[in-house]
């Protein structure tokens, strides 16, 4: 038997909503724990249950390749981690939601990521612009709610509004771009488009390029590439921390999957490739420079991570600009995996520290090396991996990207990449400095970490270090 696991995820979300409404007295965290277990089961199921290629080719808009499968697992893992973060963060959310009962409103806070997950999984397999659009909307709309979730918190509301307006704008770009491409080729399916493009006369290429440009703008919004990154810092800072993590990992990853599929579609025409690769290279360079330079002066860790997520989008775009090299696809996928591990680890440490200190500033980490050595070590590993220090998975990610880019002769991008890596060392080590150089404040409150979060952090640290030294198991497994 074979059918898409997305249906299971969707059903899980609906069942959770029903459980939340019909059993109001249930502890919402139990609900979240149950969801984590089920998502784990689905993750295991992806190894056994796969839709048959025949079925996929029948309906035409669903891709069953290894890339799609990999990103389905990616979405499931990041949703599980988001729920772990959300359980840790639940007391903060509850404080900002008016309600008569304890735990009111928390049910949806745990359920919405599951719907997002379903959207992400559809997106991973989307092989048709209509399907891409629908999946993207499912993801984005559920994110609008999550970002603005703490509705008594001005920052969260502001973040939600900004995300809504700019997200709607980017959706507009996407639809408009799709219509241009449809108008020129008469196709919405990616395969159909590339077949038709092989036969279209050169004269209409400007129109196609215009359409691609608009789609690139929309995807640039999703992956937070400069110059479409203006929403990122405020939204990341204002959103509830688990949502920020989810947004910066899963949403970005899904954006890159779609970007890779779309770019692949148009690369069949050499004339388009000539224009597309420099455009992507330009985006990559701009994103690298902007993200890294803007991160330098940040003092708020959430904002810093927002800029760093722009910077990482830059490295990933360098990989996308290197398409054509056989190593590029693998480099991007490995980088995304590394990015998932280290970003979630950083947010996982951030939540208990900011709960204790009441803020997200880097100075709230002062003396963490003495106050909570285990958590400080986890943060140290996360920061070093984000910076790209050898023996962490983040270094290998950068190594593969640089290798792919040099193979394609993108020397300017590589040089920019190296210079910005040095910037990265500065701002990531600012956190390390706070934890180890600075003394703890006298009245520093104790850091409370739940066993689940502690276990997850240890697990992530182990993965970052082990895969940083011995990535072979994952590399064998990558599409």
């Amino acid at each position, binding site marked *: 038997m074979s059918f898409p696991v997305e249906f299971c995820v969707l059903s899980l979300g609906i069942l959770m909503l029903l459980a939340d409404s019909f059993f109001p007295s249930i502890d919402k965290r139990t609900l979240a724990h149950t969801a984590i277990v089920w998502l784990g089961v689905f993750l295991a199921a992806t190894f056994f249950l796969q839709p048959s290629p025949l079925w996929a080719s029948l309906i035409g808009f669903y891709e069953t390749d290894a890339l799609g499968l990999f990103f389905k697992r990616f979405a499931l893992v990041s949703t599980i981690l988001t729920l772990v973060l959300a359980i840790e963060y639940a007391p903060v959310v509850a404080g900002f939601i008016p309600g008569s009962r304890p735990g009111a409103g928390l049910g949806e806070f745990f359920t919405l990521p599951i719907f997002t997950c379903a959207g992400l999984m559809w997106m991973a397999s989307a092989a048709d612009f209509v399907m891409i659009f629908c999946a993207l909307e499912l993801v984005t709309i559920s994110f609008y709610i999550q970002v603005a979730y703490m509705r008594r918190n001005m920052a969260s509301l502001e973040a939600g509004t900004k995300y809504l307006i700019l997200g709607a704008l980017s959706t507009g770009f996407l639809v408009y771009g799709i219509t241009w491409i449809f108008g020129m080729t008469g196709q919405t399916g990616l395969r159909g488009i590339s077949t038709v493009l092989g036969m279209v006369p050169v004269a209409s290429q400007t129109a196609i390029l215009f359409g691609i440009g608009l789609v690139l703008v929309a995807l640039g919004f999703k992956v937070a590439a400069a110059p479409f990154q203006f929403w990122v810092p405020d939204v990341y800072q204002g959103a509830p921390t688990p949502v920020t993590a989810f947004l910066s990992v899963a949403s970005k990853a899904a954006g890159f999957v779609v970007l890779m599929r779309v770019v692949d579609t148009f690369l069949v025409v050499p004339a388009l490739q000539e224009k597309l690769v420099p455009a992507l290279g330009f985006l990559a360079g701009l994103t690298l420079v902007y993200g890294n330079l803007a991160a330098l002066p940040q003092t708020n860790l959430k904002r810093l991570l927002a800029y760093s997520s722009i910077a990482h989008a830059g490295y990933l775009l360098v990989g996308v600009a290197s398409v054509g090299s056989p190593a590029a696809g693998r480099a991007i996928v490995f980088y995304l995996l590394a990015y998932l591990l280290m970003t979630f680890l950083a947010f996982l440490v951030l939540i208990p520290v900011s709960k204790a200190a009441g803020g997200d500033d880097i100075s709230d980490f002062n003396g963490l090396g003495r106050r909570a050595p285990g958590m400080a070590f986890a943060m140290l590993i996360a920061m070093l991996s984000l910076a790209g220090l050898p023996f962490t998975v983040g270094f290998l990610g950068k190594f593969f990207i640089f290798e792919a880019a040099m193979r394609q002769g993108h020397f300017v991008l590589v040089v920019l990449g190296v210079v910005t890596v040095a910037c990265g*060392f500065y701002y990531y080590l600012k956190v390390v400095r706070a934890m180890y150089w600075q003394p703890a404040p006298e009245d520093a409150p104790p850091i409370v970490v739940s066993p689940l979060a502690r276990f997850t952090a240890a697990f992530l640290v182990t993965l970052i270090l082990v895969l940083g030294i011995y990535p072979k198991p994952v590399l064998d497994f990558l599409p």
Partner: protein
Amino acid sequence: MSPLLFLILVPLVAAAFIMVGSNARLTALAGSLTNLVFVLVLLAFYRQGDEQPYQFVSSLPVIPSMGISLTLGADGLSLLMLLLASLVTVAAVAEAKTPEKNPHLFYASLMFISAGGLGAFASVNLFFFYMFHELALIPTFLLIGIWGSGDRQAAAWKATIYLALGSFVLLLGLIGLYLIQPDGMRTFDLPAIIGMADAGLLPEGNWIYLLLLVGFGILVSLFPFHTWAPQAYASAPAPAAMLHAGVLKKFGLYGLIRIAAPVFPDAVVQFSNLLLVLLVGNILYVGYVTISQRKLDWMLGYSSVMHMGYIFLGFAALNPVSLTGASLMLFAHGISIAALFALCGEIRERTGTLDFAELGGLAKPMPAFGLLFGFAAMAAIGLPGFVGFAGEILVFFGSFVAGEPLMGVTSGGRELFQFNNYQIATICALWGVVISAVYMLRAYRRVFFGPLNDRWSGLGEISGSARIAIAALIVVMLVTGFFPGLLVKLIESSAL
């Protein structure tokens, strides 16, 4: 388990034990002594003149499709560097004063730096050669930032950013070296790459050589990328300065001798003028800067930058004599600068100042201290009897005969003599010996002789483990200085 992997794991395991709460100093000392003994055993078992230069080889494939594997192996030169690393580690741990603030992190950081150095020198695969060196970056950042002195924060930032940038430039060079290999044969395995270069399979790699030169150059503080080094060494706690200046900084030159010399000999010759100008900058410009220093720690920091110039000269000349001399100097300078930084740390701990204007006459209350410092200073200058002398002589002999004559002085149609840029650089370097004698002897006089300030009359003599450690370093320099043939044989048996 392979013996070299054991060597790398010992400090890492020691660091882990220290972090979970065993006695920090004793664990570190036990770990580093184990390693020293182990390296001596390896030296005894190393078969010189064997067909196979790399011995004790073990290999664990990591990314086979890219030719990346954790391949460890040692030839004569690597063993020499491993000996240097383990010796300096023992001395650094013995010299270390357990700080009140977080002693566990302190000793664990020292162990990590040691593991990084040992791993780099024991790696045959360039990927891990590179990776291991980076293991030392963050411990150095923490050591300078937490336990340093002076403007320690600025020093730590500057050194870390410089080293991170340098290492990524180096990474590009290594990726370039990987990509110019013919498709299908690409690997990071150094002997295989050298084999390809010998077989003429590698195209011209000038830009890769330049990347390697700049990357390694930043790590070795090649002029004009040297400014991080004096500041970092002046601010670092003594054991950190010993390990970094004595061991880690040798990584860059070791890499150039190991990679650039056999793989890109043509590029080295082609860009020799550039390198000669830079290394003369190291020797003369930094030399004069060293003379004008008013503090002992800064002076030692600059002197360590300056001495790199000689080793670069040995590399640039690219003949067996000069390369042997450069390798000897790597060892000699590592030990002498470690002894000097140890002594410098002892003085700082006693007086709280290293300003020449405030010091003076210290030999009166501390004669043994003065004697040790005298020996170490003479060794750093390269006085006959110390191993540094043998190294310098070989470098100068080698570089003086390098290259083709380019210029000549004629008189009445008859050529009086001919010379080239190597000879000019060698003469500048010889003048550098005079410069280093000037600053070392001046420092020695200003600190240990002259009128004794009353503040210092009650200073305690150097004692305990620090005394033994420094004396041992000096004995090693003397023994190898009188019998440099021991080391030269070892180096000649390596895959240079």
